[in-house]
């Protein structure tokens, strides 16, 4: 107890210095918390994807379509459990800038393949039986304030109605959730048939073909079986796991992970230098006292422990405040609708608390080790002579 008391007294001896060091650490952990949460969103596509889900796209590029006949051919391949198909609709709500990720899908199999979505069975049934029915993700429904029973119209920046114009009428019949917060529930799903019957071009073609394999071990063999089957046909395919597909898509935006990691590392390195120097200074100013403590019979080990505890405590106080504010900011920002459309799965993950705490310990240890070591090795007689 008396040790802790000494540590505490030493920490608070120079209040201004304590506040400044704490503030510097606070900033570093604030950045770590916020940027870590953002990074998590970009990784979530990869992490939330199911082990057994594959994506079949046109080999030229995923924006090129595939013949709808491929769906049944793929279903017949050994190791395929369920298959569906989807088309990008290019949807927006009222104005071009209100992008809604809208997919024209096969209503009977879509939720069978995307089994990480949670949907009420009655609503699912209703959607499957309603030609103009729209199934909306929770995030998108909240963003625009849509409820089950609403009649809305969505426009497409790609397709046109046979009758002219680019607007389709829909009835919202269901809202789906994710089985965990990592699952992106932004988007709206319409019947492929409704869309194909009304629009002027593009029938018999689908955008991409998602499927589930019976077990993850078969992924590679199923993927190569599919690609071989359509080799040298007018539309060759490229089959990858959903995780690979998600990763490639994020990489298209640029090396976001690298940028975020660099900024956090730069911030930490800066703070590390500042705090390490401050600790060294604080301990060297106390040379006399440490010598006196040793004279009084405090063991070298105990002195070492005291100084190290001091830097650990400093790091943990600043770090907890930083992560705390980061959690508040991220959780608050996650409610903002503009951000929801851009970072749909934004949240403050527990993982950041754990990682953050590990970094606090590391920072405390690194900044305190040398001053503590010097204090431990201090020769009492020299120290007392020096003054």
């Amino acid at each position, binding site marked *: 107890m008396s040790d802790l008391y000494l540590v505490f007294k030493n920490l608070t001896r120079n209040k*201004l*210095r304590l506040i*400044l*060091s704490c*503030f*510097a650490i606070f*900033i*570093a952990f*604030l*950045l770590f918390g916020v940027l870590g949460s953002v990074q998590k969103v970009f990784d979530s596509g990869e992490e939330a994807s199911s082990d057994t889900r594959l994506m079949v796209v046109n*080999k*030229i*590029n995923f*924006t*090129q379509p595939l013949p709808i006949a491929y769906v049944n051919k793929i279903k017949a391949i050994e190791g395929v459990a369920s298959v569906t198909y989807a088309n990008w609709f*290019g949807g927006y709500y009222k104005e*071009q800038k209100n992008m809604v990720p809208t997919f024209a899908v096969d209503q009977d199999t879509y939720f069978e393949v995307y089994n990480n979505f949670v949907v009420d069975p009655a609503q699912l049934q209703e959607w499957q039986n309603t030609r103009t029915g729209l199934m909306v993700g929770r995030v998108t429904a909240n963003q625009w304030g849509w409820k089950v029973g609403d009649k809305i119209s969505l*426009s497409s*920046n*790609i397709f*046109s109605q046979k009758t002219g114009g*680019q607007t389709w009428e829909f009835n919202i019949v269901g809202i789906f959730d994710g089985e965990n917060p990592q699952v992106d529930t932004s988007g709206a799903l319409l019947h492929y048939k409704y869309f194909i019957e009304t629009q002027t*071009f593009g029938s018999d073609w689908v955008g991409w073909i998602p499927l589930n394999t019976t077990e993850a071990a078969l992924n590679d063999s199923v993927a190569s079986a599919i690609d071989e089957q359509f080799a*040298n*046909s*007018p*539309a*060759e395919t490229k089959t990858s796991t959903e995780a690979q597909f998600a*990763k*490639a898509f994020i*990489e*298209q*935006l*640029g*090396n976001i992970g690298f940028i975020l990691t660099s*900024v956090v590392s*730069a*911030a930490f*390195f*800066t*703070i590390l*230098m*500042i705090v*390490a*120097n*401050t600790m*060294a*200074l604080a301990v060297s100013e106390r040379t006399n006292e440490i010598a006196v403590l040793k004279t009084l019979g405090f063991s070298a080990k105990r002195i070492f422990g005291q100084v190290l505890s001091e830097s650990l405590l400093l790091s943990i106080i600043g770090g907890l405040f930083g992560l705390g504010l980061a959690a508040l900011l991220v959780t608050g920002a996650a409610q903002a609708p503009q951000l929801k459309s851009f970072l749909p799965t934004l949240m403050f993950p527990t993982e950041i608390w754990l990682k953050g705490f590990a970094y606090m310990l590391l920072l405390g240890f690194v900044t305190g080790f040398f001053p503590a070591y010097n204090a431990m090795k201090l020769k009492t007689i020299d120290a007392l002579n020096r003054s």
Partner: protein
Amino acid sequence: MGSVIKQINAVIVMSLNSLPQRLWMSLATLLAVAIVVAVLLAFLAMGNGFKKTLESTGAEDIVIMMREGASAELNSVLMRDQANLIEEAPGVLNDEQGAIVSGETYVIVDGKKRSSGTDANIPLRGVSSRAVDIRDNFSIVSGRMFEPGKNEIVVGSSILSEFAGFELGSEVKLGNAKWKVVGIFDTGGSVFSSELWTDIRVVQSQFNRGSSVQIVRAKLESPEAIEQVKAYIAADARLNLDVQSEKTYYGEQAKNVGGVINYIGWPLSIAMALGALAGALNTMYTSVAQRSVEIATLRAIGFGSLSSFLGTLFESVVLSILGGVLGTFAAFLFFDGMTTSTLGSSFTQIVFSFEISSDALIDGVSLALIIGLVGGFFPALRAARLPVILAFSSQG
């Protein structure tokens, strides 16, 4: 006045003489400021480079036409007869071959990104000879132009640095056909340098496009003639097109993404600057504490408090400015001219270079200066108010 300058000088010399005692602390502050400035410059250079690429793309006297509401080339489609009608629009410039109008197809194909090894979207633009007539800054830098009717492509110069497999003479498989890279072209750092070009008819037949195109470009007699074209299109019921100048189209995109990068860069840099500020304050308070006896002694022999204040402030500002210069230097060394690519609003990769602008330099040094001034102000205030009695006590 001269005596004040002398006094300030004396305090500065004293600060500098005692610097070795705080060498590591001062270096840490200097480096902290340098890192903050370098991070800020990196973000600003990224936003600026992207903007520059897009801004150098559009021309005032080129009008582009896409299907109504398409918003990007990828989503647009125009039938051949619509494209033909445009050739008769008033205000479009003519040469000996007729109206300078270029109908172009736009297909996305995969390329391997060198940085990640993953597939990325690259535009394959099908063009006629008119595409070159309409763009003033097009030139073949090596190899030759593709021959019409053959599976040959020319590759934009920016593609080579970021994507693998498009070297001169190599074969690229797109769909069932193999294409030969016969030339490298450059368009003066514009977006088109991030594209592959080939004969429009070959694209239309290989990709089942019939005779449709995605976009029609027309050269205007003057930038003002766009109004004539708009009126002509609006009056014809067969033409449901969005008409805008090429400059406007790319300028919009520049605003969007460039703005996003700035909105991210500034808050991050300011947060980091606050951390560096804490370090600077710490260093300067230590500096004042270490020199308190000396400062008090100077006060005792008649130095004014202003000189203690300014002398201390000077130390902090010098440290920060040095840090700012170091950070700028590092940013130039590491980031300036570095190329990277991101997904543009046409859903394809746009290659651009980091470019540090003169505005960014001023921003960077200002940020360093603010850290120096604020980080020195409060400690300097303390130095100015030190009680003279300290000079006569045995301990500082």
